[in-house]
């Protein structure tokens, strides 16, 4: 299935993601309280508010995503700021000139984003991080729709519950991390859901 990711979709995606983060901020913070330091919701909310506030009036998808990346990097701090910021920056850099991205452009951009997450965080799939939502989402996108990717991200996030954390603050808990969802995987599932809705 094909779709177009132009300025309108990019803008819609970021706005929808900001709304979802707002709606789920408390949930994300509560998840982080269990195995981290209880700030993932407030971190992401602060960041996505800054993203929306900073969005330029004009600009192609690359420019919009780059603006979002810089806002996240400047405002979030913690682990999630550099991770999401790097991801969006890499996506933006994958296609700087085009006014509209094809579905193939978007897929490549998201793979570049994923490579950025790996490079920045040095984690692997199965370490109980946001990667565990991203990888299945990208795999689903290879032959399926954005909705399929969103569904896969959510399933991947749900699967983190059984995992033992190997990276981030949760890793200090060792065995005690098992039985809790990874908060970053949940905020990543929200990201793929926002993207699917923007492309629907």
């Amino acid at each position, binding site marked *: 299935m094909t779709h177009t990711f132009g300025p309108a979709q990019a803008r819609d995606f970021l706005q929808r993601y900001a709304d979802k983060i707002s709606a789920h901020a408390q949930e994300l913070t509560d998840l982080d309280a269990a195995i981290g*330091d209880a700030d993932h919701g407030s971190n992401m909310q602060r960041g996505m508010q800054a993203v929306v506030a900073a969005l330029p009036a004009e600009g192609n998808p690359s420019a919009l995503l780059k603006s979002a990346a810089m806002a996240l990097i*400047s405002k*979030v*701090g913690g682990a999630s700021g*550099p991770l999401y910021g790097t991801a969006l920056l890499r996506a933006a850099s994958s296609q700087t000139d085009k006014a509209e991205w094809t579905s193939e452009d978007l897929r490549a951009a998201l793979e570049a984003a994923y490579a950025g997450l790996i490079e920045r*965080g040095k984690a692997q799939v199965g370490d109980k991080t946001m990667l565990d939502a991203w990888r299945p989402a990208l795999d689903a996108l290879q032959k399926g729709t954005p909705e399929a990717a969103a569904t896969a991200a959510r399933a991947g996030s749900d699967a983190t519950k059984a995992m033992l954390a190997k990276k981030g*603050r949760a890793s200090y808990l060792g065995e*005690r991390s098992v039985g809790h969802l990874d908060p970053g995987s949940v905020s990543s599932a929200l990201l793929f859901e926002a993207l699917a809705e923007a492309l629907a």
Partner: protein
Amino acid sequence: MKKIMNAVADIVRESCEGFALAHADLVRLSTDPLFLCRADSMSGRVGLLSGGGSGHEPLHSGFIGRGMLSAACPGEVFTSPVPDQMLAATKAISGGKGVLYIVKNYTGDVMNFELAAELAAAEGIEVQSVVIGDDVAVEDSTWTAGRRGVGGTVLLEKIAGAAAEAGADLAEVKKVAEGVMENVRSMGLALTGATVPAAGKPNFVLADDEMELGIGIHGEPGRERTAMKSADELVDALLGPIIGDLGLGRGEEVIAFTNGMGGTPLLELYVAHRQVVKHLEGLGVRVARHLVGNFITSLEMQGMSITLMRASAEQLRLWDAPVVTPALRWGA
């Protein structure tokens, strides 16, 4: 929660403002983005930048000055600062010989400093980084986020700062910092939790007969929650893993640093330090230098950490070199 503060959102900035007023002879404040740097010029010297979440005072801002840090970026309480702060501070202290980032090993700190280093490089400033993880309470460091940066950070900042002050180049200062990291280990314990202002309630609660052994400086859990013990037993419990990990043996010399987590009176810290010295003397290890006090804290947490550093003659010379900062001063 009872804190001497106005609004939660303002506590870090207002504290930095008060700090800059009190120490105007030594530091300058930038409020947007937020950082503190030396009042005197950095030209001709390698810059030393550190930073991290607030709530660990005097670390890092208290160590800005002659012979120690050039600048520090305070994040929100227990939250990493952001690259904007680091980049602005990097520019402020760049004196042409490059800048060394001193990063405590927490995922957020590491990534934000990494991003800052990339941004600084893009602006033509040479940056190197050291990531310190001296906390022996984290045992399995290969498969996890690794050992946390704790008390050893203070020693690293002092010793690397002395090298930078003496005019060493960036590679040399980095090597000095790495020399500290190889030889320094720490472990801490908590008798009480601490309350992050934004959270409003203690991050954990311990009963009157409990303590948490192997705590990090944010109250992250450690090795075990166990029964309260006598001062001498507590010290022995912390020293064991440190000495084992360093492989300290008879005839060696160390710097011994007994640190309070913020809410423990000096009266008690010195009781602990007495046993640190006695324990080491019993092993034939000589305590060549001592540091006792609240230097890397966790808000009002009660508890302590012990840091030992195996020290060469050259490292002791750098330790003894003059330092003139709000929180550490001697020799000048």
